[in-house]
């Protein structure tokens, strides 16, 4: 399946999906939060069976997630990006039911970026203690201890 096949297949189903082939070696698919789950399901059906990684992102104005998906049969990879404008209550649907690996990845993103994954089985902090305030991987996080940001 070439990049063009993926683009055509997704454009047929979804209207607000944009594509970028310049930013990295792989095809990047930008989706809206409301389409996110359906696009991911569609990609799973196209054979992208391996969720390589989920990266929490803070783009300044928006928070979001960058997903790297791989097709283990062909070795193809695509990147799916979803951006959330609401920094106060960022929410996304969980991917746990499509790829089991999303379980821990989403917990980590919740912990460090504060994105809430709706429908996740254990939406609790993973690395930090339960009484920690704030989300340290966000760009606007103040490091009062000066341990990392000097």
């Amino acid at each position, binding site marked *: 399946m070439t990049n063009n096949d993926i683009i055509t297949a997704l454009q047929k189903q979804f209207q607000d999906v944009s594509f970028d082939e310049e930013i990295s070696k792989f095809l990047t698919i930008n989706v809206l939060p409301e389409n996110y789950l359906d696009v991911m399901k569609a990609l799973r059906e196209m054979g992208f069976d391996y969720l390589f990684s989920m990266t929490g992102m803070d783009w300044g104005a928006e928070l979001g997630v960058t997903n*790297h998906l791989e097709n283990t049969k062909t070795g193809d990879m695509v990147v799916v990006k979803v951006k959330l404008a609401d920094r106060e209550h960022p929410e996304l649907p969980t991917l746990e039911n499509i790829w089991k690996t999303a379980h821990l*990845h989403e917990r980590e993103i919740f912990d460090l970026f504060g994105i809430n994954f709706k429908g996740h089985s254990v939406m609790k902090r993973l*690395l930090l203690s339960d009484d920690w305030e704030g989300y340290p991987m966000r760009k606007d996080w103040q490091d009062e201890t000066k341990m990392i940001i000097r």
Partner: protein
Amino acid sequence: MEQVTLNTADLKSQEYFLNMGPQHPATHGVLRLILTLDGEVVKNIEPDLGYIHRSIEKQCEYEGYKQIIHLTDRMDYLSAHINNEAVALAIEQALEIEVPERVKVIRTIMGELTRIASHLLWWGVMGMDVGALTTFMYAFRDREMINDIMEETCGARLTMSYSTPGGVMFDLHPNFVKRVKEFIPHLRSVIPKYDELLTGNVIFQKRMKGIGYMSREDAISHGASGPVARGSGVSCDRRKKGPYSAFASRDIDFKEVIYTEGDNLARYNVRMKEMLESLNIIEQLIDDIPDDGIQAKTRALIKLPKGEFLQRVETARGDLGVYIVSDGKKNPYRVKFRSPGFSNLNALIEVGKGHLIADLVAIMSTFDFVVPDIDR
């Protein structure tokens, strides 16, 4: 005196919680698993991480690209060299630097030595976890030879920081080739003894066979990689699938070790055979190290072009992904280390369910966790 009678119909069993770790010999580091138990049977596993979380990803955002390499030693410290190489490769990929052939060969030999050292340590503690204390001593004796080789060339035994963007830190020590050539036949002669000592042992076999089964589909869905996934029949070796360094520039003949049983024994066998394959790889390279320098030209202050760069390598634990988002400045906008241990831990949550606590210890051993790799 009042007679106390015990009516057995009133007795009932109750699920309870048990903390395994963070200070538990079988977790090999500070990993805490919150177990829900019914008697001795594990009903649920909830990992609680962060005891060795240093926020390496956040630190990277405030460091230059050359400094990042030194942080990666401290993730999976048993694959330190391979981690360094991954970051160096990502930077070289972004800057489109072609490193000298000598660098590629040195990195690959060092990487395979690292893999053997890691698997040796795993074998030692694997035996110890199931009650065979002797293996630990044997494995450490042989692993020491690799540490000595590393020390001579890199100046460090564990956290080597040997790769730099565009090359390696120092040239090989004059003893290097001789020492490696002594080590190869030595390890070949002791691995059959390892098998006699542990692999063929009846008790060990019973602890391994059929325990901790994971299907191929589950391994993929859990994002498992490395020997854990290859024990379930998934072909996922990055050295074959996305060759880098000498795997890309040379025609190296080696097998990707795959077992399809999906149990403890399969994962065990994968690592045992992988050590021999690593020896084959080193043997094909050691006599043919070209002499075209150890450093490609790079700027003193490295700036990556705008864009996103992903480099995947095969560490001793699996598929390590270094994902760099650059906005063109001297430090990265975002760095993500997709560590193999993190996704493999996700698989353990399901694989461990329904087993006895003692079997969970054995399963964890065959998953070969290094906790700083999970926490980062």
